Each structure stands twice: as structure tokens, then as C-alpha cells.
């Protein structure tokens, strides 16, 4: 029975199936992803206590559920939420990498979404590039915007957009190295399509994080705004 992609079936918008990438590319990305994950486990081990574990569970559950909701973008194409930057600002980038890895393994083994031979590439694109890279961009911009409340949300939206476009570009590079599609064809096509999907990512991430900030600001670990802004909020919280 052929259980692979055919138009109309639900699949991740960046999840690479078996057969697209060469063994060399799959092996190389697997080694990089495995190294990143094992370092990630060490970092999580150092920072995680009793409290963060259920938060990790609920974040992974939300990301899995939200990734099922494909929304239409232009040209008869659909995309969905990725959640890499979202989980990074909640849990920190290394726990986020672990969460993305768990989600990708469950999707691959349980739902035939993303190939098992391409699991290293998928973790690389969405975890290493999406979660770690996206968080790097977030921190850079948040610092650049002088850690204001507005700056936090601007950095969050831009980094979310970049996490999608960078992840898709990484996939295009892997396709090109594998000889599946030349870079000058795959890169503009993947980056272009995902530039639109990234707008959805920015909207959903910003909305979800602002909702959590309203109810449980202590759970957004990356939300460390300047003193004046957080004081304003404390006053606001009291009056609200």
C-alpha cells in the first residue's frame, strides 16, 4: 500500500517525505540534529524542574494540534503553524528543540507525516533552524528594540516569520544538494511560498503569546522587558 503524499492528504507544510533527499544529506543532517538534541537534553536537564515538565507537555500538545490546521494561502497552497519560536519563548530554545523533535517523531511514526529517513533533515529544518535559529533572531531583535513591550512583540512576529522562511530555505538547500531540484528553482519557490505561510505563523505566535502573557506572564520565559514597562504592567494588573 502506498502511504505517501498525494494532493489532498494532510501533511506538514515543510515535512520532507522519504525519497526527496539523498542518503548523504539525510545522514549529515541526522548527525547535526542528534548532536544538537543531545546538547539540548543536557541544557534542559540543568534548567528544568518539576514545574517546567507539564508546561512542556502542554506546549507539545498544542503544537501538534495546531499543526493539523492547514490554512489556505495564495495559489491553491496551504500552510500551517509551526510553533518553533512560540515554544522557544515559553520554554527556552533548547527545550523547544526537544519539543519539536518529539512532535516530529510522533508525526512521522504515528501519522506518516514526514519520512523516517528524512527525520534528521526535518529536525534540522524545524528544530535547529526553526527553534534555535528563530530564537537567535528573536533575541537579537528584542535587544535591538531595547527590550520594550512593543519591541518584544515586534521581535516575536519577525522572528516567527523568519523561522518559517529559514526552515523552508534549509529544506530547499537540502533538495538542491540531493539533486532533487536545482537551488535556483527550489529556493525561490520554497522561500516564496513560505514567506506567505510565515505571515500566518507571525499572527498565530503573537496572538498565542499575548494571550498567555495576559493570564500567566510568568510562563513566558523570554519576556524580560525593561523595568519601567514591567512596572507599568504591575500597576495595570492591580487596577485591572
Amino acid at each position, binding site marked *: 500500500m502506498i502511504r505517501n*503524499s498525494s494532493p489532498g492528504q494532510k501533511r506538514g507544510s515543510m515535512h520532507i517525505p*522519504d525519497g526527496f533527499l539523498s542518503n548523504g544529506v539525510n545522514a549529515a543532517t541526522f548527525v547535526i540534529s542528534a548532536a544538537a538534541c543531545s546538547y539540548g537534553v543536557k541544557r534542559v536537564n540543568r534548567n528544568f524542574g518539576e514545574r517546567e*515538565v507539564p508546561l512542556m507537555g*502542554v506546549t507539545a500538545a498544542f503544537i*501538534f494540534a495546531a499543526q493539523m490546521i492547514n490554512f489556505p494561502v495564495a495559489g491553491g497552497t496551504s500552510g500551517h503553524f509551526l510553533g518553533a519560536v512560540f515554544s522557544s519563548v515559553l520554554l527556552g530554545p533548547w527545550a523547544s528543540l526537544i519539543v519539536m523533535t518529539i512532535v516530529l517523531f510522533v508525526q512521522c511514526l504515528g501519522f506518516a507525516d514526514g519520512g523516517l529517513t528524512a527525520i534528521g533533515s526535518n529536525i534540522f529544518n524545524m528544530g535547529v533552524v526553526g527553534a534555535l535559529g528563530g530564537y537567535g533572531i528573536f533575541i537579537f531583535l528584542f535587544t535591538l528594540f531595547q527590550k520594550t513591550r512593543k519591541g518584544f512583540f515586534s521581535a516575536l512576529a519577525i522572528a516567527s516569520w523568519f523561522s518559517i522562511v529559514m526552515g523552508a530555505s534549509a529544506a530547499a538547500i537540502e533538495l538542491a544538494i540531493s539533486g532533487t531540484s536545482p537551488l535556483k528553482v527550489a529556493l525561490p519557490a520554497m522561500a516564496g*511560498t513560505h514567506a506567505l505561510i510565515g505571515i500566518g505563523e507571525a499572527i498565530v505566535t503573537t496572538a498565542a503569546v499575548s494571550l498567555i502573557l495576559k493570564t500567566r506572564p510568568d510562563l513566558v520565559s523570554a519576556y524580560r522587558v525593561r523595568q519601567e514597562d514591567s512596572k507599568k504592567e504591575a500597576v495595570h494588573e492591580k487596577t485591572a
Partner: protein
Amino acid sequence: MKRRLNGFVYIGLGFSLLVALLLSPFASTSPDGLEKVAETKGFLEKGKGWTFWRHAPFSDYSLPWIENEKVSTALSGLIGTLAIFFIAIGIGKAIKKR
């Protein structure tokens, strides 16, 4: 600020389960980003006919024994969301500091 987490976890999980159950059957079925590119750039065939892992119980987000496609998608999403919640908690417990 070490507030209890229980309420947030239940509400968050409940919300996620509702998303999977109620929204997933109505998700867009248009080809996704990579699929569309593969289609238009002519390499979709490369991913067809060969799958390394053939034992996915909920292949393509459906339960094979349920005929109604929408119900099938919704229930597979529900099972997946609940399963991943416990899997992530299990892995989190295994790697947290003791």
C-alpha cells in the same frame, strides 16, 4: 513568582484537544508548501511509492476503521494530541534535573 501550573495545563490541554477535534476536519486540503513546490517543479514523484516506515497507525491523520473522513481526522487528532501530551511529559520527566 512560583504559581501553580495545574489550571494552565488543564486549560491549555483542553484548548489543544478542542482545536484538534473541532478544527482539524475543516483544515484546508490544498497541497501544502513543500508539496505544491514539488508538484510544480516536477519532483513530487520522487516521494511516491516508497516509504521507509510503514507501520504508522494513523497514516495521513485518519483512523482506518472509520469511514467518515471528518470524524476520522478529528479522532486521530484527538488521540495524537493526548498521546503527545503524555509522551512529552514522560520525556520531560526523564531529562529534568533530579
